[in-house]
């Protein structure tokens, strides 16, 4: 019997190696795999490359990972927010490398990794500082830059529900990077609020088919709901 349900976030993350590239889902507060990130901090892997839309906020989640000195490089589109001070300080001290990628290119490069596309030409960033040093080509009179896949060793995503085959559904805009990151890593770990019986997810509505998912781990919703109220307060 296939059973991708892991007993705990600790068990799910036990084999993450130093030097890994880790794709971390989430956009703003939505879809952030908070419990998995906390478990990654506890797990202790170092010298990580983190791929995420942002570079952490406050001192929780990705920011806490940064603060713990575990991250060598961050690949993101928007590292600057009101409370990204942990990243800011590390960056200004030259203690972390930043690879700034336009958001759509970030997502498309991970999609390419998952879809077996070797490279692609995108008009995004052509003629800008973020296109500098990249191969370019005019296609139909429009400038394009050549972009390569971003592959993860591990993807950490947050979904709403999952089953033992690894099928996932998300909730509202918390879907964001989840499905693409799930497809782009060797090992995809999904935290969910509910693990459901096989067949409980309508085959028409599955967003991430289990083929992209290595492990599913349930986290309590109660804690999350409390955080939501706190953050909203």
């Amino acid at each position, binding site marked *: 019997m296939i059973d991708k349900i892991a007993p705990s976030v600790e068990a799910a993350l036990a084999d993450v190696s130093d030097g890994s590239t880790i794709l971390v889902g989430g956009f703003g507060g939505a*879809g952030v795999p908070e419990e998995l990130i906390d478990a990654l901090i506890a797990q202790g892997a170092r010298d990580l490359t983190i791929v995420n839309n942002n570079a952490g906020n406050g001192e929780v989640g990705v920011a806490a990972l940064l603060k713990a000195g575990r991250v060598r490089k961050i690949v993101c589109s928007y590292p600057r927010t009101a409370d990204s001070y942990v990243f800011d300080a590390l960056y200004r001290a030259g203690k972390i490398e930043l690879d700034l990628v336009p958001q759509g290119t970030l997502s*498309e490069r991970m999609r390419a990794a998952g879809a077996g596309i070797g490279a692609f030409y995108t008009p995004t960033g052509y003629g800008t500082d973020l296109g500098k040093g990249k191969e370019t080509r005019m296609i139909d009179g429009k400038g394009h830059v050549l972009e390569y896949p971003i592959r993860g060793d591990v993807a950490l995503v947050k979904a709403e529900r999952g089953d033992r085959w690894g099928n996932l559904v998300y909730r509202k805009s918390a879907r964001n990077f989840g499905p693409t990151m799930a497809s782009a890593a060797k090992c995809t770990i999904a935290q969910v609020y509910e693990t459901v019986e096989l067949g409980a997810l309508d085959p028409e509505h599955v967003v991430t088919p289990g083929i992209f998912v290595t492990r599913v781990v349930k986290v309590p919703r109660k804690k999350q709901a409390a955080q939501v109220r706190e953050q909203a307060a």
Partner: protein
Amino acid sequence: MSYVKLTRDQIAARIARDIPEGAYVNLGIGMPTLVGNHLPKDREIILHSENGILGMGPAPAPGLEDLDLINAGKEPVTLLTGGAYFHHTDSFAMMRGGHLDIAVLGAFQVSVSGDLANWHTGGDAIPAVGGAMDLAVGAKSVWVMMEQLTKGGESKIVERCTYPLTGIAVVKRIYTDLAVIDVTPGGLVASRLVPGLACEELQRLSGVPLSPSAARAAA
């Protein structure tokens, strides 16, 4: 003659009135978000949010925020009846693929040929680009919403951008607190100047060539 600058809400209202029924529109973070407050109630206009929403509605009533339903600026929003969710890659495919009719973006500078600089002020600042470059190259029409002049009185419409570019020759129209300026193959064309402002004066303030619109009288 003396004139009064438009407020940000007045610029937003002007832009909102120009968006036709049925348009698919992305409102950039910052000032353009205001446009959402002025959309005509009798028109169906479908707002896109880069984080995977079509049919985005206004902010929820206090207490009804859902942290799984936010806009590109990470603020709580709602979904209109008929809206849909999708993932980030599909969302940017919509943007890059030319499916959005209009993107309204803020700007630090716009050049006479429509180059846009709106993501980075250069220098020591930590750079952050988000979805700005994807919107700039992807939307059928890029409209810029900005003040005509910086706080220091310098023109934000320039011969050549000095800030890092977001996209080349992408801006079609600029809505400012003084006028509406179209970027055309024949150069910048100004219309709907605030009452009391002559085109010559606008050109002097801008420091770039501007012609009055032939349709100006009608505006």
